[in-house]
C-alpha cells in the first residue's frame, strides 16, 4: 500500500510540475493519470498492491468530495441569485449530451460481439 500510494502521489506531483511548468491547460492530477496510464501500457498490468489501493480510493470516492461540496455554504447567495440559469442550463445540456453521445455511439459501433 505504501508503494502504491507513493506511486500515485509521485504521478500527481510530476503531473502538477508538468502542467504548471509548461503551462498545460489540463489539471495536474489529470496529467498524473495519463502518466500512470502510459506507464501501465509500457510495463503491463498493475500489481496487486496498486490495484487494491486504487480500488480502495475509488470505492470511497464519494467521501472525498464532501469537504469541497460543503463549501457551498460560502456560495449560497450567489446560487440563490442564479438558480434559474443554473437549473435550465443543467437540464437542457444534460439532455442534449445524453442524446448526442448515445446517438453517435450507436451510429458508429458495429454489432456487439461481447
Amino acid at each position, binding site marked *: 500500500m505504501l508503494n502504491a500510494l507513493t506511486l500515485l502521489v509521485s*504521478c500527481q506531483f510530476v503531473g502538477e510540475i508538468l502542467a504548471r511548468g509548461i503551462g498545460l491547460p489540463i489539471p495536474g492530477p489529470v496529467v498524473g493519470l495519463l502518466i500512470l496510464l502510459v506507464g*501501465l501500457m509500457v510495463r503491463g498490468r498493475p500489481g496487486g498492491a496498486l490495484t487494491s489501493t486504487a480500488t480502495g*480510493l475509488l470505492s470511497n470516492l464519494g467521501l472525498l468530495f464532501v469537504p*469541497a461540496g460543503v*463549501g457551498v455554504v460560502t456560495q449560497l447567495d450567489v446560487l440563490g441569485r442564479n438558480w434559474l440559469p*443554473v437549473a435550465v442550463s443543467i437540464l437542457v445540456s444534460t439532455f442534449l*449530451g445524453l442524446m448526442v453521445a448515445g446517438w453517435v*455511439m450507436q451510429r458508429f459501433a458495429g454489432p456487439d*460481439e461481447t
Partner: protein
Amino acid sequence: MEKLFHLWVYLETTPLLGLAATLLVYRGSLEVARLARGHALANPVLISIAVLACLLLATGTPYSAYFQGAQYVHFLLGPATVALAVPMYANLARIRRSARAIVPAILAGSLVAAASTMVISRLLGAPRDIVLSLAPKSVTTPIAMGIAEQIGGNPSLAAIFVLITGLTASLLVGPALSVLRVTDWRARGLAAGTAGHGIATARMLLVSETAGAFGGLAIGLNGVITAIVVPLLAGFLAGK
C-alpha cells in the same frame, strides 16, 4: 458548564472536529442511502453535504474552520484522480476494439454538454464564475474541480453542479435516449457515463452489465477529453 465550554473551545481549534464530522456524517449517509434502497435522490454525497452545511450554518462555524480538518480528506482527491488510470487500463482492450465509435461519441457528448451549458447559462444572465463552474459539470467530480480551478471557476460550485448533473442524467437518460431510438446497451451506457459520470452509470449498472461497463470507461475517457476541450472552449464562450 464551564468545562464544556473549554472543551468546545479546544475542539474548535483542532482539525479533529471537521475530520471526524465528515467521516461520521458520510458513514451515516451511506446507511440512509442503503435504507432508501439506492433511490436516485438518496445520494450519500448529497445527504452528507446537506447535513454538514446545515451543521455549519446552525452552529455559526465558518467554512474555513471546518475545512482545517476536512482538508485531509479533500487532499486525497488528487491521488484518487491518478488512480482512475487503473480501471481505465483494465478497459483498454475494450476501448481499442471500438475506438472508432467511442472516441467520437464521447468527444461529441463532451463538446455539446459543455458548450450548451455555457451558452445557456450566459444567455440567462449568469456571471462568469458560475458559467465557468458549470462548464465541466458532466465530468467525474475530482477532474471537474480541477478543470474549474484551472479556468477560473469555483471548485465548490463545480462539485455541487457535478452532483446535480449526475442526478439529472440518471432521471433523463431513459427519455433522452428513446427520443432518438438508441437501444444498443453499449450506447446507452456510454451516454450515461459521458453526460452523468458515476451517478448515472451506477443507475445503468442496475439494468445492464454491458451498459455499466461502457459507462465506466466513458467516465475516465470523458474526464481526460473534457479536461483538454473545456479550457479551450472557455476561452471564447465564457465572456468577460
